[in-house]
């Protein structure tokens, strides 16, 4: 495939998000979702390896099924109640179908198995795009749906996601599967945020992107497919190994790092809305997933091979340094920054 085509797909993916953001009619949303999927499919098979093709087919089938369900749900609600604007559909069968379709597209809890399989087949960079940018269209639909009174359904899925994401990752030794489960756990928080207030969901999403980008990029750099590869990272690239470890702990939401801020923010609003049970369930799920974050960071930071490290910290030799290390530094001091900004005189 000619590399000059890739901007076309990028533009198409952006347009799909713009289309969804700026419309309230379900047909245009469906159009946006389909456009995003179709533009992403060629990127998934960029290197033509058999694993990638398999992953792409899985991705395409699930997305196509979800899109058909979305379309059908839209037809049902328009046909029965003559409503085509998504934020006015209130509690009929069509809305439930649309919600299920979006949940399937995002990979929310009962439908999260495809994400794990697809991410396992991909390289880190397409995987990163799949787990970050490709969530945007679905979330945009959710922010419109979440304002309706039927949000209990979404909250249930949102609670289920961290629990299943946490439990699923416990026995994993494949780094990419682990990242997929971790993204699933974060998705639960995100969806709960979207339901409470769309701005919260978007803030949490931005935080998740900031936290996970450096992890993906450093893992790509280390070419770590299995957890054992990470154990060696401290030997030949100590800086990257350490930064991956810190990135994982930040994803886990431990307080000195930025990851805690998202949890803090959402918990504040959950308790404010008297959703205590939800808050506790989310936290329990996060605790479970913290177990595997901790395991990964043991491998990156703590476990020593028989030899000592012979090379110094080569900060300057990491390529992509400036942006990515900058993001990790943001992980480390981000909480202080947020605290400082919030204390500024209004």
């Amino acid at each position, binding site marked *: 495939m000619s590399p000059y085509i890739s901007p076309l797909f990028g533009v198409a993916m952006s347009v799909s998000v713009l289309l969804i953001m700026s419309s309230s009619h379900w047909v245009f949303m469906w159009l946006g979702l389909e456009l995003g999927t179709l533009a992403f499919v060629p990127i998934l098979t960029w290197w033509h390896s058999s694993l990638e093709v398999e992953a792409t087919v899985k991705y395409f089938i699930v997305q196509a099924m979800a899109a058909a369900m979305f379309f059908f749900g839209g037809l049902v609600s328009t046909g029965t109640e003559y409503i085509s604007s998504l934020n006015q559909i209130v509690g009929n069968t069509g809305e439930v179908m649309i919600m299920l379709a979006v949940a399937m597209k995002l990979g929310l809890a009962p439908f999260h198995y495809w994400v794990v399989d697809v991410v396992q087949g991909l390289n880190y960079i397409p995987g990163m795009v799949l787990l970050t940018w490709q969530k945007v269209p679905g979330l945009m639909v959710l922010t419109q749906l979440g304002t309706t009174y039927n949000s209990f359904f979404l909250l249930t899925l949102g609670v289920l996601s961290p629990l299943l994401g946490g439990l699923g990752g416990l026995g994993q030794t494949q780094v990419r599967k682990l990242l997929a489960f971790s993204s699933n756990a974060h998705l639960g928080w995100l969806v709960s945020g979207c339901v409470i207030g769309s701005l919260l969901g978007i803030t949490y999403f931005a935080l998740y992107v900031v936290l996970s980008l450096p992890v993906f990029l450093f893992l790509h750099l280390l070419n770590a497919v299995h957890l054992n590869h990470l154990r060696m990272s401290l030997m030949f690239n*100590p800086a990257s190994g350490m930064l991956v470890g810190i990135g994982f*702990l930040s994803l886990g939401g431990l307080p000195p790092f930025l990851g805690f801020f998202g949890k803090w923010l959402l918990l504040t609003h959950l308790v404010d809305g008297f959703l205590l049970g939800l808050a*506790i369930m989310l936290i329990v799920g996060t605790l479970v997933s*913290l177990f595997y974050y*901790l395991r990964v960071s043991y491998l990156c930071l*703590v476990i020593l091979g028989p030899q000592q490290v*012979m090379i110094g*910290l080569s900060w300057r030799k990491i390529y992509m340094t400036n942006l990515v290390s900058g993001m990790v530094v943001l992980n480390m001091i981000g909480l202080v920054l947020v605290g400082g900004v919030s*204390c500024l005189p209004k």
Partner: protein
Amino acid sequence: MNHLVLGYVGLVIGVIVTKKSMVWRVGQVGSVLLMLPATVLVNMNMTISNVSYMMTSDFVSLGLTVLSIWLLPLMLLASQQHMVSESLIYQRVFVGCQVFLTGALVLAFMASDLLLFYIAFESTLLPTLMLITRWGAQKERYQAGTYFMFFTLVGSLPLLICLIGQYQMVGSLALDLSYEGVFQLSYLVNFWWVGCILAFLVKLPLYGVHLWLPKAHVEAPIAGSMVLAGVLLKLGGYGMMRVSLMWGATAMLSSEVFLALALWGIVVMGGICLRQTDLKSLIAYSSVGHMALVVGGVLTGVAWGYNGAMVLMIAHGLVSSCLFCLANLWYERSSTRNLSGSRGLIMIFPLISLGWFLMSLMNMALPPAINLFGELVAMVALYNWSPYSIVYMSLGAVLTAAYSLYLFGMSQWGNTMKNYKNLYTITSREYLLTTLHLVPAIYLIFYLGLMF
């Protein structure tokens, strides 16, 4: 007092960037220099003082802040020996971890806002985890680290929800205010109270949630043990004092359960200590027993209880830290902590066994040690709560005396084992280390006013 915390941040950076030969010197001299701003704290008693942005210190936080600042150079002093063989970058990270940990502790003790306290409280987890799992001796250290993290986190996440809930209802998390009477007396307050103190009870630890502590102590390197026994456990006592001072009698309704567990813990831990064969785990279990009395003192909710718990915490911080140092000093020479393998040390190291002697006596609260003072005052408060508690407390005191004697007798008396041939002598660094623990412990006998 922001400059104190900034000083620790600067010291972390200094340790990371300084040249090779200066890492330990920068750490030690810097941490001693940081005691200077702390001397300002000591002048202020019984009042809320040194108020600056988001930080304050009063009589509750004073002693513990000074204790954590005091222990940092001692930790560095104690861990020099086993770090010399490590590569430079690991030495930097090791010293940096300890300095960061102390900075977080100072921030926790001096925060004027409960949420800032919570964040600092949680920030101490990561450097401690690094100390335990990275520099521990055996491979069981991973299990110990995971236990440590998960016990603490499971306890402390309800605390976060409770704090946020309080902020939503009352609109403030300031430590120095009294919120008594803001909540109406209802059964919900009980849940709130339990959620608030659960984190601290796990951290102290209370009997029943103490399983992480002996594991962590046995696996941790000497610096980790010192800071765990010296200050980190006290974080729990401090937090409990703060929360209960804020809410007063309103929230103390369901404390009976924990008081009972604490009393039971004193006795059981005494019994468990008597059948330990490992020096470090004996000292660790004795910490649990002593901290049970702190729980008792605080949860009675009377002034005597608080004062006793405060004195006991500081006394125990110095004594148990020194006992760990002494155990480690033997461990570095003989590579064993087994009690049956370490007999008759008085024949090998006569002068250091004076340290063992004094510290064992202080551990069993012999007069005129400050431990005795703390224990007596806390016991009076507990007796006032329920006269029957005297049974458990006296039994506990007897068992404490018994295992302290057992510790001293097993390690110092008897025949020296024949297989120790080339033990190198105690260095002046180690004498200094022991002395710097002993001096404040003895000095505080004459100046109890410093602590309450």
